[in-house]
């Protein structure tokens, strides 16, 4: 039984904030391959191409036949054979988190693994395995209770691997549109303490303003991602007390490339979505990084909501797709940087959003509430990538199977 999280006390100004170490980061290429799959919420292990037997730790050739190996989804059950509580370590990250419980797990998939243990798991238990990502973005087998236990998500060891919004303060960059508003409400419902809701032009009203700004826990803030000084001013005010950033800024206009493309739209799109993302990262990443191990409400995640068409391009929305592509690229770079500081960088991928800028795109489209749900889920699970809705899932799975074919399909 897990104690429910309690709100952290106000910071003692005389106490040095705990430095944001990350767990040891050296990994093999195979372990990194496991990480990227774990980052999408998969539970995968390698199987022998000849016999189908499963192997772990990550290998480069089958120990059964010396054939090559393939990552495959595996059953998630396991039994905990042995348990220990680590009380001493020479690693700076784990030293701050002692005692730390690990166990030997016999996976239903076959292999044996050393795993992190949820506080409600004990020796002999059947458990449900997940592959989490640690603060440095590396894969971590984590044994969860087989059945839901009270306050399960509040387990302190589990919370190291998630970016659960509960009790955290979140900046949602664009509250002027339906996506940001839906995201803000979903985060509050998931237990966020405060949602700072960005408004790019405080002199101009926006639809839903009175309703959203009246919600308890919403704090409207001036934030225009196309304006460096605006972004920096907000970071100067909030940088030290924002634990999660969710970038919902979008600028979508229909456009071709050689035909019907508007350079001024492209420019604004790039300013808003690409330069804006960099402004946001430069303003908030350093302060967040300094608080990545600051207790219950440690800074945890930087989430970017971008179009799945960043992977493929999109006929009729070429400029917006180009902005999304640049955004995904910047996010990858930021992920690499933030892995050293213990902040998870996440992508929420959307299909055409069901909004005023996709009026002539036929359904199914991605509803703002689906995006909001995905944002909460990606934070609670601590993933790196998540698809909001079926359209994005469909495109991502096609892209993973055959990138060039999917690019062709999406641009015809």
């Amino acid at each position: 039984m897990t104690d429910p999280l309690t709100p952290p006390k106000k910071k003692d100004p005389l106490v040095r904030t705990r430095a944001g170490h990350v767990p040891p980061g050296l990994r093999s290429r195979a372990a990194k391959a496991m990480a990227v799959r774990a980052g999408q919420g998969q539970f995968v292990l390698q199987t022998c191409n000849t016999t189908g037997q499963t192997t772990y730790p990550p290998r480069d050739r089958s120990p059964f036949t010396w054939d090559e190996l393939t990552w495959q989804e595996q059953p998630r059950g396991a039994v905990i054979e042995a348990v220990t509580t680590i009380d001493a370590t020479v690693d700076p990250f784990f030293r701050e988190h002692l005692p730390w419980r690990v166990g030997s797990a016999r996976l239903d998939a076959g292999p044996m693994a050393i795993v992190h243990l949820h506080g409600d798991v004990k020796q002999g238990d059947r458990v449900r395995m997940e592959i989490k990502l640690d603060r440095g973005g590396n894969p971590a087998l984590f044994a969860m209770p087989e059945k839901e236990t009270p306050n399960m998500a509040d387990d302190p060891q589990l919370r190291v691997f998630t970016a659960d919004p509960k009790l955290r303060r979140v900046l949602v960059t664009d509250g002027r549109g339906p996506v940001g508003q839906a995201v803000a409400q979903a985060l509050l419902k998931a237990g966020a303490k405060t949602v700072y809701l960005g408004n790019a032009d405080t002199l101009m009203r926006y639809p839903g303003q009175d309703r959203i700004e009246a919600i308890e826990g919403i704090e409207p803030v001036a934030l225009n991602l196309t304006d460096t000084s605006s972004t920096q001013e907000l970071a100067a005010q909030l940088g030290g007390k924002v634990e999660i950033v969710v970038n919902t800024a979008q600028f979508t206009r229909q456009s071709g490339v050689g035909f019907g493309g508007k350079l001024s739209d492209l420019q604004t799109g790039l300013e808003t979505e690409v330069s804006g993302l960099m402004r946001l990262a430069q303003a908030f990443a350093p302060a967040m990084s300094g608080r990545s191990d600051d207790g219950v409400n440690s800074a945890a995640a930087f989430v970017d909501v971008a179009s799945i068409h960043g992977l493929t391009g999109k006929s009729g929305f070429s400029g917006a797709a180009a902005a999304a592509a640049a955004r995904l690229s910047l996010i990858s770079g930021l992920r690499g940087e933030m892995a050293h500081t213990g902040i998870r960088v996440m992508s929420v991928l959307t299909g055409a959003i069901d909004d005023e800028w996709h009026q002539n795109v036929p359904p199914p489209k991605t509803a703002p509430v689906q995006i909001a749900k995905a944002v909460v889920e990606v934070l609670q699970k601590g993933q790196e990538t998540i698809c909001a809705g079926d359209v994005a899932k469909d495109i991502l799975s096609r892209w993973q199977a055959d990138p060039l074919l999917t690019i062709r399909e999406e641009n015809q």
Partner: protein
Amino acid sequence: MAKQKSYDGAVVCAPVTVPYVRFSPETAHWWTGAALAELSRQTGLGPADFDGFCFASFSAVPDSVVGMVQHLGLSPRWMDHIPTGGASGVMALRRAARAVQAGDVDIVACVAADTNQIDSFRQTLAGFSRFSQDATYPYGFGGPNATFALITDNFMRQYGIGREDFAKLCVAQRDNALSNPTALMKKPLTHEQYMKARPISDPVHLFDCVMPCAGAEAFIVTTPEKAEELGLSTARIAGTIERHNAFAEDAVQTRGGWARDIDDLWQAAELGPQDMDMVQVYDDYPVIVAMQLADLGFCDKDKLPEFIAQNDFTISGSLPLNTNGGQLSAGQAGAAGGFQNVTEGLRQVLHCPLGDQVPDARHALVSGFGLVNYDRGVCTGAAVLTQEVLR
């Protein structure tokens, strides 16, 4: 399988222990040179005189045996690098003996040396192996303590062994260490102190853990003729075994490779456990001592509590165990920890111990266990050393 051929024509001599220190600013190269200098002092031989060199170390990176040969001015016609830590002593012994026996080499200096600089333990762990880097150390970074805690937790439950049983082994080894002037641990350890020690990674507590240190161990393998010429006392190798990655199917390690090959050892040696005057076993955590005693044929695992209760493991006892104090009390100097079972066993059968002498010692069982590559020790080996000529 055919019976192992004898090691006739090869003898072991000149055990060397360079006294350990907790932290050293020196390098593995320095410690290796110190061990060779002591061999030189005992034999009068210099760099040009050793035509064989067998080397084990973790902290010599980026050098292997090749770098060490040039660094220390050797020009061997046979050399080997043994990267197997706790199993390296037995493996060096076997390899050097066969090379001498075959005439590929006359006199082999077998050396294990490691330094222990501030923070080198953490750095060694962080990059120890591919599997540990991917799948063990990121899990709390308890190092070997955590890995062996899981093995111990399971072993205790499987075989009904308690901490009080391990206590007897550890307390006996500390008793043995008290006569060894080079042992790092110089104070007696009581049963109560052992039981009340703080947990490191339960059920592993403070006195179950070795103390990492710097040091070097060495011995010579050569022909009987050469040993006689040099005036060295000699032991012969009665039999050996070696096995790696045995019982991979066991979920948690409860046995090592010895269990698979032990009959071959006793058959080759034409001796049995009851003939051993002492055992020098790898002792990084008492659970491994207990596991070895069973796997080497001294008792069944489920009889371990009784076996431990019935025996006295001190130097004057019924089964002297790790008579220099073992790594638990003498210190663990990296790969040298895998050599000290050989050097100590050799000293006892050659009657030139660092501390107290096992009375009338003629046969020593030395056993190595090395390299926790992932969740268990992968490398195992054992050898029986028998007194031949005392000079």
